[in-house]
């Protein structure tokens, strides 16, 4: 029983075959990594999974439902959330507001109860605020609560994006290069954070370039090259796969 099943997925941009016939399954409560050189099609794959791009061919099954071609907001409400390779925060909002927005679809009270500030509205807003604060604590951001998101240092912004993704209460979280631009200490913290997510019951799919992170925390890894899946296996298997070494690791380590 898999949480996510990707079946023969392809995405073409005109003549460019960004993703070509990729299949894989992700087990619930695991960390699953996607690696591959720049331009391999990793982000495009994420965009297909989250509905920002319509797959040219193939199917995406999430929790037994076919979501291929659904809209991004619908997919998000079904339980897949993500971060972006180039951070996309609500820059003029405060840190906690960014997280509160992500609980949008959890709020039941409508316009009228908001205008009269009904007891149920107040209760709901309070719950949302408290929950948002918990997500900030999880990422160690509680001290930045009232800062304007756009004014924060890069590493903090990356963490906030993860907190926001979690706040949608998604069961599957897709992280696109979460350690990009971080120093070794921040990277170390990020590894711990991602492991924490799994321990909380989340399933994580990770796009990552830092091999220490990938090999250190993933249960399973797939390797993309020119849009094609060239390998899949445990970190050990991937490390020793000659095709992977040639296509990817080889280039990095010589």
């Amino acid at each position, binding site marked *: 029983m898999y949480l996510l099943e990707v079946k023969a997925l392809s995405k073409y941009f005109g003549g460019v075959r960004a993703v070509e016939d990729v299949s894989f399954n992700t087990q619930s409560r695991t960390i699953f990594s996607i690696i591959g050189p720049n331009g391999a099609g990793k982000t495009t794959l994420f965009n297909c999974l*989250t509905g*920002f791009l319509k797959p040219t061919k193939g199917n995406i099954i999430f929790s037994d439902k076919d979501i291929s071609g659904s*809209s*991004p*907001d*619908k997919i*998000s*409400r079904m339980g897949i*959330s*993500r971060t*972006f390779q180039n951070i*996309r*925060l*609500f*820059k*003029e*909002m*405060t840190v906690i*507001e960014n997280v*509160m*927005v*992500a609980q*949008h*679809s959890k*709020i039941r*009270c409508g*316009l009228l109860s*908001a*205008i009269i*500030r009904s007891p149920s*509205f107040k209760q709901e*807003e309070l719950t949302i605020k408290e929950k948002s604060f918990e997500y900030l604590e999880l990422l160690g951001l509680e001290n930045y609560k*009232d800062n*304007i998101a756009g004014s924060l240092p890069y590493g903090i912004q990356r963490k906030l994006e993860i907190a*926001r*993704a979690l*706040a*949608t209460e998604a069961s599957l979280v897709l992280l696109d290069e979460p350690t990009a631009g971080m120093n070794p200490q921040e990277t170390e913290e990020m590894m711990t954070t991602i492991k924490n997510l799994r321990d909380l019951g989340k399933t994580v799919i990770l796009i990552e370039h830092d091999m220490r992170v990938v090999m250190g925390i993933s249960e399973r890894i797939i390797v993309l090259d020119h849009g094609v899946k060239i390998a899949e296996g445990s970190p050990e298997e991937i490390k020793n796969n000659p095709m992977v070494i040639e296509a990817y690791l080889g280039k990095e380590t010589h």
Partner: protein
Amino acid sequence: MKKLLEKTRKYLMPLIIALWFSFLLLPFKGIKASAFLFIVLSLAIPAMQLLSNFIKKIHLPQIDFNRYIPQDKRYLPLLLIPLAAVPFLAEDYIIDVAIMSGIYIILALGLNVVIGFTGLLNLGFVAFYAIGAYSYALINTNLGLGFWSAMPISVLLTTISGFLLAIPAMRLKGDYLAIVTLGFGEIVRLIFNNWDSFTKGPNGISGIDPPFLFILPIDSLPDFYYLVLLLVIISVFIMTRVKASKIGRAWIAIREDEIASSAVGINKTLHKLYSFAFGAFWAGLAGCLFAAKMRFVSPESFTFMESVLVLCMVILGGLGSIRGVIFGAIILVFLPEALREVQMYRMLALGAGLVLLMIFRPQGLFRGESVSTRS
């Protein structure tokens, strides 16, 4: 060599531009005028460049206007005292201008939902103001319904028209949306202008009833002032609360980053529709008040310039800030009145003021409060 080329370009360009324009003027005004234009331009262009370089270099003071306003909302009711005292202290003329700023506050708050919260440029917002005003005028004069029954119907009609415009416009972004809404504004005005049998065309509709309080007509300036004051308070109250709710946060999220907003589960098409409709709602109310105050409507009151004026109110105060928009509306209604003495130059002065604003404080006077506490 490259540097030399760049230098020549820098000094020669203004001369060439000046020469070209004087050449264009030559057939129309003769040699002397052309020479004059040449001299003026060749001096003015470098002067402009110098000025803009200077502005870029100096460190502009960032004044936070919110600092000068007490943030504690408990004091807000105290404001009622001076506001309620206006009709006792001021002459009729001032009350009249105050009524107009009240109507514009409601209108500008409506546009602020669309452009300030949601970030959608609407250049034809005056169309909704017109639809509200004409709906009340037509319902009142044709069906004989009074203000309190005709007004909700008119506001509903305006809200529906907001929805109807939004449906085709939702697929458009930025400049395209601006052009379509601008076109919508003009079309609505032209319909009112040309559908003589229904709207009496350019002559307009007169004999509109004022609102009644039981059997007493609210037609004196002080009475109407209190009516508008009440509706302004209600609209500010509702606006503040909607802004700090789920839907307000969703609007601002869409403004900040559309892609991220759908990634967190916000249906952006639906929320843009809501935004247009909710904005139109307030424009409809403002329109009804306008028709009831003037007791007369004609297409002349709903030109593109009116849309621009309301847009300026929103931008002046700071996109998205409710107190900013109120401030912007009051300034832009009172200022032209104050400058009435220099009638000819008042639009020029307003324009110059806005240019200065764009240079010194492009985010508007009040922007930059946090969402949930922002008002």
